[in-house]
Structure formats: structure tokens, C-alpha cells
């Protein structure tokens, strides 16, 4: 097994679009890396550059010690699972899985063995002689996985492989992918824009924003210690509460809202206070007042949404915040809740650069 190194990788499309603007990354052998980011940030582009489906405009990509910039996709020793499965419609499941091996001139017995093993592992052994159009979406996804597994590659690449499946199947496959990856211990890169997928699958997460890696690290590290406003707002569901504030030397202010317990912040600068919904608790002596708009019951936990009293957002409208509590937290509509949080658990960002100050 071998890792993947990206050294100042750039991509400019022929039409001039700068999709990747210098990415450095060192992926260790056997690690599972997840790329997350908003639509159009360049996740797929970066993945496809590793796969060899997009040319590299600048920098180097290497797998193991081999620079693969000019190596053809079939010789990079990577296997990819596509979002829409990309099965060969005219071949049976067996044909799909063995096609890549046949082209690599493996002997028949070995191909047979690998296909059968992978099929058993993915529970598709009873479909081996079916055509792809005779399979359900979930089964097709398994075949696509099988096609990647039999290749026994150095690196697995996944481009939103689960986004065409229904919610329940997605959870099931997610667990299965993680288990397979653990068991095979193959270096993997996984692209998704699904929060939960990203948090649960990744050994390390790379948050990508506008062609650059904003921050990279273990999922919990990114959750509890985001470097930028973007990472803080992108990671975590429900989203972090963001309150625009200014500092006057003693308190953070927004309208009549005054929050004490913060220091060493620049004055007369637009700041953003970030408070995770799960670090706030309902008390009688808190710093925030909230008027309840909506309670979402998720079974084990409840999410309470409402307007923060005394403060306004950038448009001068009510500021919506969210509180996470257990299932006993069931306030009435329009009830006033008093919330408290430990200032040490909150983040403060500089508004114009997104840089984290506290």
C-alpha cells in the first residue's frame, strides 16, 4: 500500500476557470480522506486529477514514490467508483468486474477467484450473470464497488458514490464502505457534500473552498477547533449559530445584547461569534434570550429554533438561532427561553477575512 502526495496542485480548465488553486496534501498509506465543500468548490476536479481523468495544470501528484502526472489512468493503479455507477451496460455483472483484469492480462483462474471473492464480500454473488439493467440502484452500486475492489488498487477514489441512493440504503452502504476500507486497508479518497458521510467516514477531512484546502484534520478536530469561519459554518449539523458582533473592550455587542467573558479582541472591527447549538443550555441565569419558533423532534434529541432577542443580523432582521437538547426539552411556541454558554466553548472570527481570533 502507498500514500498519495499532492504538491501545489493546480487546475485551470481550457475555458479559463481556475478550479484548483494550489493544493498541498499528504495522504498516508491506508488512510481514508474525505473532501467536503460546497458545490463547485473543486472536489471532483481534484479527485479526477488523481484518477487521471483531468490533466494537471501545475504541481505534482504522486502515489507511493511515483509521480503520476503523465501516467495514463489505467496505469496509475487507482480504482474509482462513480456517482452514477458507470457500469458497462452491455456486460454482465461478471463481465463488468472482470473487464479491467482481462485487459491487464491476468490469468483466468485468478480473475475468477477475485471476482467470486469480491462478489461474496459484497453479497452480489447471486447476480453475477445478470445485466446491469436488471439490478436495483443499491445492487448496481455494489457492482461498481466490486469492480473497484477486484482491481486490488493502491488507491480507491469515490465521487459521491451514495448520492443516488435513498436515505436508508445510504446509511447502510456508508457503514459497509467504512468496514471494507478498514478491512482492506487501502488508501481512499472520498468526495461528498454530505455532512454525516464526511464526519463518519473520514480519518481526516479536507474542507475545500474555492479551489483551496481551507483546513484539514480529523473530523472532531475540525468540529471543535475550526481555523476559519467557513470551516466552522460548514462542519456540524445543525449549523453553528453565527452572531455578528463588535467588541468595545469589555463586551461583545449586537443591539441590546451584551456578552461578557471575552478579551484580547480588536475593537471597532466587525466580528462574528460562533456558538454550537449543543454547547448552549437552558438555564434561568443565561446570557441569551430566545423566542421559540419551532421544535424539531428527532427522537433521541430535540432541536429548538427561534429568534435571538435584542440582536439583529446583517440585514437588520431577526437573528435565528438553534439550540440542541434532549427529548425532554419541549418548550411551547413563542415561549421565552434563557440560554447560557461557556465563552470558552465559543469561537470568534474576524468577519472580513474569516480568520479565527478566539
Amino acid at each position: 500500500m502507498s500514500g498519495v502526495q499532492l504538491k501545489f496542485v493546480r487546475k485551470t480548465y481550457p475555458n479559463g476557470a481556475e478550479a484548483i488553486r494550489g493544493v498541498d496534501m499528504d495522504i498516508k498509506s491506508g488512510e481514508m480522506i474525505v473532501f467536503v465543500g460546497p458545490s463547485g468548490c473543486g472536489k471532483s476536479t481534484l479527485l479526477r486529477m488523481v484518477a487521471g481523468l483531468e490533466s494537471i495544470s501545475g504541481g505534482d501528484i504522486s502515489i507511493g514514490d511515483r509521480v503520476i502526472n503523465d501516467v495514463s489512468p489505467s496505469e496509475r493503479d487507482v480504482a474509482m467508483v462513480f456517482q452514477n455507477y458507470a457500469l458497462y451496460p452491455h456486460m454482465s455483472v461478471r463481465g463488468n468486474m472482470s473487464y479491467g483484469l482481462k485487459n491487464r492480462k491476468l490469468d483466468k483462474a485468478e480473475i475468477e477467484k477475485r471476482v467470486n471473492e469480491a462478489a461474496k464480500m459484497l453479497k452480489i454473488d447471486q447476480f453475477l450473470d445478470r445485466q446491469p439493467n436488471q439490478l436495483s440502484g443499491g445492487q448496481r452500486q455494489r457492482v461498481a464497488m466490486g469492480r473497484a475492489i477486484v482491481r486490488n488498487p493502491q488507491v480507491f477514489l469515490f465521487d459521491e458514490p451514495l448520492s443516488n441512493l435513498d436515505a436508508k440504503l445510504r446509511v447502510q452502504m456508508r457503514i459497509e464502505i467504512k468496514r471494507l476500507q478498514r478491512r482492506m486497508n487501502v488508501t481512499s479518497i472520498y468526495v461528498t457534500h454530505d455532512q454525516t458521510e464526511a464526519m463518519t467516514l473520514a480519518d481526516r477531512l479536507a474542507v475545500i473552498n474555492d479551489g483551496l484546502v481551507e483546513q484539514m484534520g480529523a473530523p472532531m478536530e475540525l468540529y471543535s477547533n475550526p481555523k476559519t469561519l467557513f470551516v466552522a459554518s460548514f462542519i456540524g449539523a445543525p449549523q453553528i449559530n453565527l452572531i455578528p458582533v463588535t467588541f468595545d473592550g469589555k463586551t461583545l455587542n449586537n443591539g441590546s445584547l451584551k456578552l461578557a467573558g471575552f478579551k484580547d479582541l480588536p475593537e471597532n472591527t466587525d466580528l462574528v461569534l460562533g456558538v454550537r447549538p449543543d454547547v448552549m443550555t437552558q438555564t434561568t441565569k443565561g446570557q441569551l434570550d430566545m423566542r421559540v419558533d419551532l421544535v424539531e423532534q428527532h427522537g433521541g434529541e430535540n432541536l429548538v429554533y427561534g429568534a435571538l432577542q435584542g440582536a439583529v443580523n446583517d440585514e437588520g432582521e431577526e437573528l435565528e438561532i438553534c439550540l440542541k437538547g434532549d427529548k425532554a426539552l419541549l418548550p411551547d411556541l413563542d415561549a421565552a427561553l434563557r440560554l447560557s454558554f461557556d465563552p470558552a466553548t465559543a469561537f470568534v472570527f474576524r468577519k472580513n477575512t474569516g480568520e479565527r481570533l478566539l
Partner: protein
Amino acid sequence: MKRVQYEHSPIPYLFVAPQIIIIVIFFLWPAAQAVYQSFLLEDAFGLSSQFVWFRNYSDTILSGAWLQAAWFTMIFSFLVTFLSLGLALLLAVKANEVIQGASTYKTLLMWAYAIAPPVAGLMGNLMFNPLIGDLYGFMNAVGFDFDHKLDPVDAGFVVVLISVWKQVSVNFIFFLSGLQGIPKSVQEAALMDCKSSFRRFWTITFPLLAPTTFFLMVINITYAFFETFGIIDTTTQGAPGGATTTLVFKVFQDGFRGADIGGSSAQSVVLMLLVLALTVIQFRFIEKKVHY
């Protein structure tokens, strides 16, 4: 159990009537006429006719000229179909890879589509004119002793060339749209599975184009059989010595030029049966293999 019953209205029949009338007037009626005529022998002035059973069939079909035409038709149809499909596929694959100026290429390649066969024939005739024809001059300049008025192979070359040229654009359009119908991700998956682009073409692209190819094959064979009539009529007119006479052209020659209505009817009935047989074969044996 109650079945859902819809009230029958005559309106649907009214809608299909024009189509049925057209088929009856322009196809069934002439076909019936041909069958009837094929059993009659007319005198030279067309004044009287006599019922002769299958004599028209045995006379024409067993004649050397008919067998020659049948043989030529086979070779001609095979060459035209094979060459125009092959060439169009090659062009379509190449045009599909072109990124810059793609639409110009495509438009240029599609142009010939708008040309009617007789016009294509006239143009070809000019190009192979012994006095002013550029292609005639070129063939002789590069060392061939080229004369399509005398040499059967040269004459065959001319009609095949023009027929293929005329047909390539239609095939090109269909192949190109077929190629564009192959999902990009499937091609990318193949790119990661197979290094050789030649092998990729024959194992992925070509099989996925099979339905298009089959459809075009039927169209092209029909074209070579029937529509090339206009090209032959405006170029070689079946010469030299019947060497470029297709079965359809022979029907026309014997019937309209030779005024042998009975004989040419017999030929067209045989032709009809041939085409029927060909169609059945195509659908029975080939179509099974092309759908996935």
C-alpha cells in the same frame, strides 16, 4: 368481474385513413399490379396480352443478364454499406474527439446529406467526365489506365464512390449522436480499466453503438438496393455491358426502356421477395445480438 369498456368511436380510423390510403394506392395496388402483370406476356405494341404462368419468371430470372445484375447488386450493396458505414464511423469517432471548431467540422461533414441521389450522380458524372472531369484526370495522372466507359471495374468504382459519398453524411449524423449518447462516465470507467484505445473502442464503444449500427445497416442496404438508382441512371446507366446494372435499374430498363412489362414485373416481384427475405434475416438473427 367487470371489464372496463370504452365506447368505440370511428374517429381513430379517420386519423389513420390517410396513411392507409397512401399505402394502398402507392404500394399495395402497384404491387398487386406487378404480380398480375408478371404472369402476362404482351405483344410488342402492347395491344394484346396472354396468360403465360411462370414463363416471365423463368425467362428473365434464368437469363445471364439478370444473374449478372443480381451478382453486381450483391457486391455493390455490400461495398456501399460496408464502406459508407465504416467511413462514417471513423469520421464520427474523430469528429467526436475534436474540441475546437467541432461544429464547423460537423456541419461540413453533414452537408452532403441535403443532396438528392440524382444530383450526386450528375456531380459525379461531371467529375468523371473524360474531357473536363478532375477525378478522371487525376486517376489517369496517378497511373491508372482509368476508363469507366469501357472497364467494368472502373465503372463499378465510380458508382460505388458516388453512392458512398452521398450516404456517408447520413450515417455520420447517426453515429455521432450515437457516440454522444454513450455516458461520459462509462467512457471514463473504461479509460481506467483499459489502456489501449483500440481495444477500448472494440470492447466498449462499438458494442454500445450496435443498435445504431444495426439500424443504419438496414437503412444502407435499402439505400444501396433502391435509392442508388438515381446515381446509376445519371452516371453509367448500367454500362459497360450491364456491368453496373443493379436489379432495380434492370427493372426500370426492361420495363420502361425495353417495354417488357411482364418480364420487368416478374423481376420486381422477385426483388420484393428478396428484400422481404433480407429483412427477416436481419431482424431475426442480427437484432438479437445487438440489444443489451
